[in-house]
Structures are given as structure tokens and as C-alpha cells.
């Protein structure tokens, strides 16, 4: 459980730090000094949906951290054998990295208002992701036919479960990607889709980091 506890310690440290900033030496029953101008500290200067994504990423991190903790705890079992790694996983990783890169270019284009760049970046990013997912399914197929069934050993079971969880999160992201791409196709202006593109980009980077961690885990143990 160390992984999860570390993650939680980080979160709690952030929460406490932020709370201390907000509350230290503040006596709420005493009149505050008058304020002029904009918001007197009522919240982060980010659009709510971006904050929402941040919170969701914390939830997803909790999910993956717990799965990783379970992985380590199960690894103590007598029947642990390291996973046989299909080579295709390397190819898939490259595809996902490329996907993140393309999303980032789409994001930059959206910030500078270049609709062509956004369209291209989104399309390429989506295609790379679909290639990744197809590759993951191929890896499953490959392992299965090579005799490494789900039940053969616990490392296999974890591989299937972890890649399934990760893949499902990607599919969720693809849903938003699809809606944004279609909106663009129908002639929406760049500034209308900018927030969605930014959100997608952050999400994709997050899932890339998660994949790199999972991949590293499976390789090294």
C-alpha cells in the first residue's frame, strides 16, 4: 500500500498547504479589510471544468495507485512469474507518445487560433490513440494464443486488468475527442473548441504518464 499512501500523502500535503494559506491568521468573524477590484480569493483562477478535470485526474490516480499497490502486494505470492512481454507493447507506447505530441500541437494551435492546426492535430492524435488501442488488443490476442492465459499466473491477470482499465479511460477520452472533432467539422470557430482541446491534451498527457508507469512496472518486475 506504500504507493497509494505516498500518493495520498502528496494530496493531503497540497490540501493542508492550500488550507493554511487560506486560513492562517484569518479570523472570519472579524471584518475583513475592504477589497476592491476582482475576486477576493474565492477560488482558483481556472475555468471550473478544468478544475473538474484536475479532480477527476486525482480520482484516476487513486485508482491506478491502488491497482499498483495491489500488484506489489500480490507479487509477494509464491506463484509469481514475470510477464512475457510481447514486442508490440513498445510499438504501442510509441503510438501513444505520438498521440500526446499531436494533441499538444492541436492545443498550441487552438491557443493561437489556427483552425487548420487544430483539425490536423486532433485527427492525428485520435488516429494514434486508435492505433494504440488496436495494438493493445493485438497484445492480448498474442499473449492468449502463446498460452499465457489470463489465469496462468497473476502477472498475466494484472496485465489484462491494468491494460483494460487504462484502455477504458482512453475510450472515455475518445468520446470527448469525437464530440470536439465533429463540432469542428461542422464549422465551429476555434475559440469554441479551445477549452475541449486543452482538456483533451491534459487528459492525454496524464494517460501517457500512467501508461509509462504501468509499462515500466510490467517490464521491471
Amino acid at each position, binding site marked *: 500500500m506504500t504507493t497509494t499512501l505516498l500518493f495520498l500523502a502528496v494530496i493531503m500535503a497540497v490540501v493542508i498547504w492550500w488550507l493554511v494559506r487560506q*486560513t492562517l491568521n484569518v479570523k472570519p*468573524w472579524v*471584518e475583513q479589510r475592504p*477589497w476592491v477590484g476582482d475576486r477576493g480569493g474565492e477560488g482558483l483562477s481556472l475555468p471550473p471544468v478544468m478544475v473538474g478535470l484536475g479532480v477527476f485526474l486525482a*480520482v484516476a490516480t487513486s485508482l491506478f495507485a491502488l491497482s499498483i499497490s495491489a500488484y506489489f502486494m500480490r507479487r509477494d505470492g509464491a506463484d509469481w512469474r514475470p510477464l512475457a512481454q510481447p514486442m508490440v507493447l513498445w510499438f504501442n507506447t510509441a503510438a501513444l507518445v505520438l498521440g500526446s505530441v499531436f494533441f499538444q500541437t492541436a492545443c498550441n494551435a487552438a491557443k493561437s487560433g489556427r483552425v487548420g492546426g487544430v483539425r490536423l492535430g486532433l485527427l492525428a492524435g485520435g488516429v494514434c490513440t486508435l492505433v494504440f488501442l488496436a495494438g493493445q488488443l493485438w497484445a492480448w490476442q498474442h499473449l492468449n494464443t502463446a498460452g499465457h492465459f489470463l489465469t496462468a499466473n497473476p502477472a498475466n491477470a494484472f496485465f489484462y*486488468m491494468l491494460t483494460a482499465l487504462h484502455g477504458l479511460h482512453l475510450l472515455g477520452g475518445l468520446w470527448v475527442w469525437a464530440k470536439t472533432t465533429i463540432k469542428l467539422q461542422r464549422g465551429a470557430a476555434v475559440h469554441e473548441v479551445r477549452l475541449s482541446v486543452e482538456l483533451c491534451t491534459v487528459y492525454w498527457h496524464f494517460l501517457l504518464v500512467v501508461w509509462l508507469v504501468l509499462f515500466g512496472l510490467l517490464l521491471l518486475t
Partner: protein
Amino acid sequence: MTYVHVGHDATAYAPPAEVAEVELYHPKTFIGKYIWSQDAKIIAIQYSITAIGVGLVALVLSWLMRLQLGFPNSFSFIDPSTYLQFVTMHGMIMVIYLLTALFLGGFGNYLIPLMVGARDMVFPYVNMLSYWFYLFAVLLLMASFFVPGGPTGSGWTLYPPQSILPGTPGATWGIILMLISLAVFIVGFTMGGLNYVVTVLQARTRGMTLMRLPLTVWGIFMASILALLAFPALFVSAIMMLFDLLLGTSFFMPGIVSMGKQLDYGGGSPVLFQHLFWFFGHPEVYIVALPAFGIVSDLLSTHARRPIFGYRMMVWSIVIIGGLSFVVWAHHMYVSGMNPYFGFFFATTTLIIAVPTALKVYNWVLTLWRGNIRLNVPMLFAIGFIFTFIHGGLTGIFLGNVSVSVPLSDTMFVVAHFHMVMAIAPIMVVMGSIYHWYPKITGRMLNVTMGKFHFWVTFLGSYAIYLPMHYIGFLGVPRRYYAMGNTYFVPESVQTLNAAITVATLIVGVVQIVFLYNLVWSYFKGKPSGDNPWEATTLEWQTADTPPKHGNFGPELPVVYRWAYDYSVPGADKDFIPQNQPPGPTAASVAPT
């Protein structure tokens, strides 16, 4: 320390710029307004009705369990198998589908936007979806009553290997539906939780700093954070258990012989499940308790006409309790066979968490001290909460202290403890807060005579149920036992005591009809309440209309100038100052001398 009235020139405050408004969806049809509603107030009522409905099912299940314990073998359909199914479904429904859903989905949705001064939650569409996921999860769970083998009878804790092996009721379809229902619930609650957290962070109205939030919001906010971070543990363990059952993996399944047959599992760890489950399970009890803590602070303050004592410490203790709740889980596992050295760590953290909790209790009572207490129905329930929570919290110290816990583990003492602290105390708050906020939701007061009767029977009856149960546990009578049978050490009198507890249970249960009747009757015949019958300071009482309309506050959002507890401010002409009342020559603002 004394406080004096200090005058302030109103012009020292520049009128603040308008806060960006949440995009509201304006429905036109009945279905859009009341069924597929995106208005948090309607969603709150949907959650509450569903939660209370399924809670009544669980209440009836508890009567059936108590009938078997009090009057054994009186009803032929309560056999050892169905008994375990009742135990399991009662527990799971009450903890997750009633309490969590009611406090977060019900109270959270109704009160958070109103109390922070927002028009609605920040993601109304996702909020609406969250309710329908919840309802779907409830239906899936109820469906397990009708599948072959019936619902799972593994206890709400669902421990493998037994939960997925023959010998336990519902070890196929029952447990599958349970696990899938939980997964759906968790997805739904993530959607809801995102709303509650981000709304508190981002949609507070001008002037509503974090330290001006009422403790109700703090409690629900912290509980939502806990839920978001802890539910994934249950989700992951549900997936892994489904894999073990359906795909033959061995996450939790060691090499075993079941009913004389060697099974094809090996190497898995049942204790791994327990770690994951309780990593979720302990924060879960705080997900139920923290909103109750926050709400009761506001009930006490409003009805004692006194600021909640030690507001800052109260906020800090909510945060610290929330944080610590993640590092105490294995006190549920002292006799699980886990590494015994863990016992030292978890006993220490568990007893540490008692300190901020005790502080909250002291501050609640100190709020009553030197107050001006109106003993109306919400206040009576608040006092009932304090009394039962003190008892339940103190028995928790027995169970948290590892060596003391060992003889008491898995006995009726544990059952009595968690009912006192997680069922009776929070339900006192649920009922008190319904009496408190019903006027805001409906525009009418609940009948006081029925309310007082409801309070006395529920409070005294519940205490009569659970106080003696602790002593049955001291004797050593185990939990989840269909019948005690003959032993060398359990006296006959325990059976009589069990019968008495059952009678009390049935009386308390039946009297809830008075409450339900009151809810319906008062809707039509209750005394009209006006906008602010309790003369409370928080924003939900300052709405333009009662009940509040879509958009909550009329054309202009309120501006907040003070904290939520300006009750009995010296020098003020009234004994309360609403949060959105600007400072002026007659309004007081205070500085310590």
C-alpha cells in the same frame, strides 16, 4: 475576550464585480423540470426519495433479522441462508445506498449551491447523470433478490474466498449483481463528487471565502473528497473479485479444497482484498460522519443562537479527521492474520484520530454553553446526536486499541458500536436536518407534536436497542450468528435480552410511520413558514422565494460580508445577522478588545 461593536462606513466597500455565472439549463417541459432535471434541488429530492425508499427495505430486513434473534425459529422462511442474505443486504444498503447517497447526493445537492451562493452545481448535466447511475445501481442491487440463489449472503464486507464459493448464499448471480451495482454506483458518485468539490472551489459567490462557509459545506466538501479518493479501492477490488469468480484468476484465491473438491485457484491472498476493502471502508464511515458533523454544528448554532464554538478548530479537525481516516483502515483487520506488527501502527493512528473528534464533541457542547437554546425539534435531535455519538465514539476507543479489540472483535460489541456511531447518531442528524430544512424546501413547517413524539421514541428506543447489545458482546456472543444454541458460557437471560431488543426495534421501526406521515401531511396542511422561520444566518435562508426557484437567488446573486455564525452579536438589534447583510450603521461588525 469581549467583543464590541465597531462601526464601518459602507462606502469602504466597493461593489464587487459580478461573478461569472454557472450556465443554467432552462427546461420547458414537466419531464425536463422534474424527471431529467439538471436542477440540483430536484436532483437532491430524487436522491433523497430513492435513498429513503431503499433504506426502508433495509429497515424491514433488520426487523426480520431481529425477529430471528429475539424469537428464534418463529418464521420458517428465515433460515440460516436467508438470514445471512438479510444481514448482507441490510448492511450494504444502509451504508452505501442510504447514508452515502442521502448525505452527499441528497443534502449535498440541495445545500451546497444554496449555501455557497451559486445558482446550481457547476456541471448540471453530469449531476443529472449521477442520479440516474445511482438509480440504476439501486435497481441492479434489488434485482439480486430475484435471481437464482438470491442475493449474496457474505456479509456487507464481501470477503473472499467464501463470497464466491458454494456454501455462502448467492455466490454466483447474487455476488455478481452486487459487485456490478457497486461499480455503477461508484461511477455515478464520481460524477456527483466532481460537482460537489468543484462547486465549493469555484462557484462561491462574491465574498464567500472558505472561512465564511458554514460547517455543513465543509463537512460535505471533505466527505466528497474522501469519497472520490477512497471509492476507487472498492472499485478495483470489485473488478478483481469479478475476475476471480468469472475468469478464474487468483487475485484473492489461494489453493483451496471446497466441498471436497480441489479448486483450480492458487497463490492469491484473501487478506489483499481486506486491505483494499477497508482502505475504502474506513474513509466510508467518515464519508457518512463528516457531513453529519458539519450539519449538526449548524443546527446547534442556529437553535442555540450562538456561534459554533471554535469554528477554526472545527474546520481544521474536519480536514485532519479526513486525512487521518486514510491511515487507520487496518483496525478492521486486527484479527485478520495480517502481519501483527501492523497492529502497533494502526492502533496508534486510530487513537490519534480520537483527539480531533473529541475536540468536535467539546465544541458542540460548548456551543450550548452560555447559549439561548430553543428546544425545538431540530435542537432535540442535535442533542440526541451528541449523546449517542459520545457513546459510540467512546466504544470505538475500545475497538481501536489493538489488544483490547481482540476479545471484542467479531462479537455483538462491534455491531452495537457501529450502529450507535454510524446509524443512530447520523440518523439523528438526518431527521433533525429534515425538520430544520423542510420549511425551506416546501414553505411549510413540520408538525411539532408529531415531531417531538417521533424524537422521543426514536432517541430513547434506539438507545434501548444498542446499549444492552454491547454487553451481549462482552459476554462473547458472536455477530452474524443465526442462533447461539447451547454453550457452556452464554446464560438463558441473553435470549430474554435479545427478545427485549427485538421488541424495542419493532417499536422504533413502526414509529417512523409517524415521521413519514408528518412529511406528507405537513406538505399540505403545515403552517406556512415564511422565508426564514429559524432566523438563521446562512444563505439558503436568504433566497428570494421559498421554496427557492430555479436559479436559487433571483436576478442578483448575494454578496457575502460576514461569516456564517453572527448570532447574538453584541450591539446588534436582532440576535442574528444574515451573511449577505452589508455592514452599516446599525449592523455590527466586531473586533476583539
